[in-house]
C-alpha cells in the first residue's frame, strides 16, 4: 500500500466520522429544541431603515 492509498483510506474514515457527527448532532438538535423555535428566524431586517431609526433616537436623546 502506498502513501496515497493510505491517504484515501484515511479520507474515507474521516468522512464517515464527520458525517456521523453531523447526523448525530442533527438528531440531537431536532429532539432537544422546540420545532417552532428552530423555525422562528425571519428574513434579514431592513438594515438601513433600522440605522436611520437608531440615529433619530440618538438625535432625540441629544436634544433632550
Amino acid at each position, binding site marked *: 500500500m502506498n502513501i496515497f492509498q493510505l491517504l484515501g483510506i484515511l479520507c474515507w474514515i474521516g468522512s464517515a466520522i464527520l458525517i456521523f457527527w453531523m447526523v448525530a448532532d442533527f438528531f440531537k438538535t431536532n429532539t432537544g429544541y422546540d420545532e417552532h423555535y428552530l423555525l422562528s428566524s*425571519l428574513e434579514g431586517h431592513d438594515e438601513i431603515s433600522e440605522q436611520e431609526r437608531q440615529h433619530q433616537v440618538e438625535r432625540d436623546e441629544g436634544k433632550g
Partner: protein
Amino acid sequence: MADQIANSPEEKKEERISLLTVLGPAHVWALGVGIVLVGEYMGYNFSVGKGGALGSLISCWFIGLLYTCVAMVDSEVSATVASAGGQYSQAKHIVGPLMAFNVGLYLVFAYTMLEAADALVVGDLMVEAAADMGYPGLDPKPFVVFTIAILAWLNYRGVFMTLTVNFVITAVAFVAIFVLFFAVQGWTPGVSVHHKELLTKLPYGWLGVVAAFQFAIWYYLGIEGTCQAAEEVRSVSRALPLGTITGMMTLLIAASMTWYITAGLLPWEYLGVSLIPQWDAARAFGNPVVKFVMFFGTLFSAVASANGTITDAARAWFAMSRDHYLPVWFGAVHPKYRTPYRSILFLIPVAISFGFTGLLDQVITFSILSGLLGYTFMPINMFKFRRQWPLGTIRRGYVHPFHPFPAVTLFLLCCVTYFATYLGYGTQLLAMMTFYIAASLWFHFHRYKYVKRGDQFQMTWPRPVGY
C-alpha cells in the same frame, strides 16, 4: 434579535432564532473570490480549446465586462435587500414569486454543481500527484467525499470560522499565481514564457471566440455569491459593495495573469484540454518548488470554492424554505452554531452524487448555465427596481453609476453567451430550460398555495411606483 437559547418551552415560544451578524468586508471578499478563484486554476482553459489562446483572452475580457456589470448591479440591490437568499430575495421583492423561485433554484444548482466540480478537481489533483510520484491508478472518490464532508462540517459549525478559513486559503491561492508569475519571470518574454512562438491566429475564427465565452465565465463565476452573506454581515451597505467590487478587481487581475502565464508556457492544443492547467504549467516550467506551490494553490483554490459554495447553496435553500417555497422544515437555524444546518446537511448527498459522476465538463456546464440564467434575471431586476423605487424613494446602501448601461451591457453579453453555449452544449441548454420550466409549473400549480403571501415580504419599503 433573539440571541439566547431558551430554557423552558414557554420562553422558547417568545424568542426568535437568527443567523449571526459577524462578518466584515474581508469575509465578503473571501466568500466571493474564494468561490471563484478555482476558475483561475482550471476550467477557464476550456475556453482556449474553443477559441484558441487569443480567443480565450478576448472572451476573458468581454466576460470580465459582463461580471463587472454583475458586481455593480448586484451590489446596489443586495446592499438594500439584506437577506440570506441573495438574488432570490431580491427577485421576490422586486419581480414576483415565480421569478424568485426560479432564481432560488438557479442559485442552488449553480453552487451545488460548482461544489461538485471543486471536489472533482481535488480528486483529479490527487490522482495526478500520485501518478507524478509513480503511483498511477489512484481512486479519486475518497478525496472527493472527504472534501465535501469536511467543508460541510465547517459550514455546519459556524459561518465566521468558515469564512475566516476561506480568507486564509483564498489569499494563499491568490498569492500562488504571483509566485508562478515571478518564477517564470513573466515580465521578460522569451526567458520562460514564449508567447511569440505559442500564440497562433484564431484557429476557429471569430465564431470560436464567441464559443469561448461559455467557458470564459469560469474565470469569474460565483462573485455574485457575496450577497448570500447579507444577513450575516455587520454593515451590509458598506461591506457588501466593498467586498464584491474589490473581489471583482482581484479576479480581473488574477484572470489576466493566469491567461498570460499559461498561454506562454503551454501550447493551446494542450492547454485547451488540460484538467489542471496551472499545475501543468508549473510542471512544464520544471521547478519543483514552483510545482509544489502550484499544487497547493490549486488544492486551496478548489477547497475555498467548495467551502463558499456550500455556504451559498445552503443559504439559498434555507431562504426559500423559510418562505415555504420549499418544505419549511429546511428553514431551521441551529441554536448553538446559528447556521442553516438542515439545508447544509441535505445538500451533502446531492453534491457527492454529482461528484461521483466524474464528468467535470458536464458538471461545470450545469453550473454555468444555472449561473447564466441568474445573470439574465439581474438586468430585468435592476430596471424594475429603479422604476418601481426610483432614487430617493428608499434608502439604498449603494447606488451604482451609469445606469442603465451596466444592465443593458449585461443583458446583451448574456445573450451572446447563450448563443455560445448553444454552439457547444445545445442539448444541455435545452434540457436545463425544460427542467426549469417543469419546476416552474410545479411551483405554480402545486407549491405556491403553501406560501404565506404577506409574510414573505420583509422590507419596510413604500408602495412601488405605479401600484
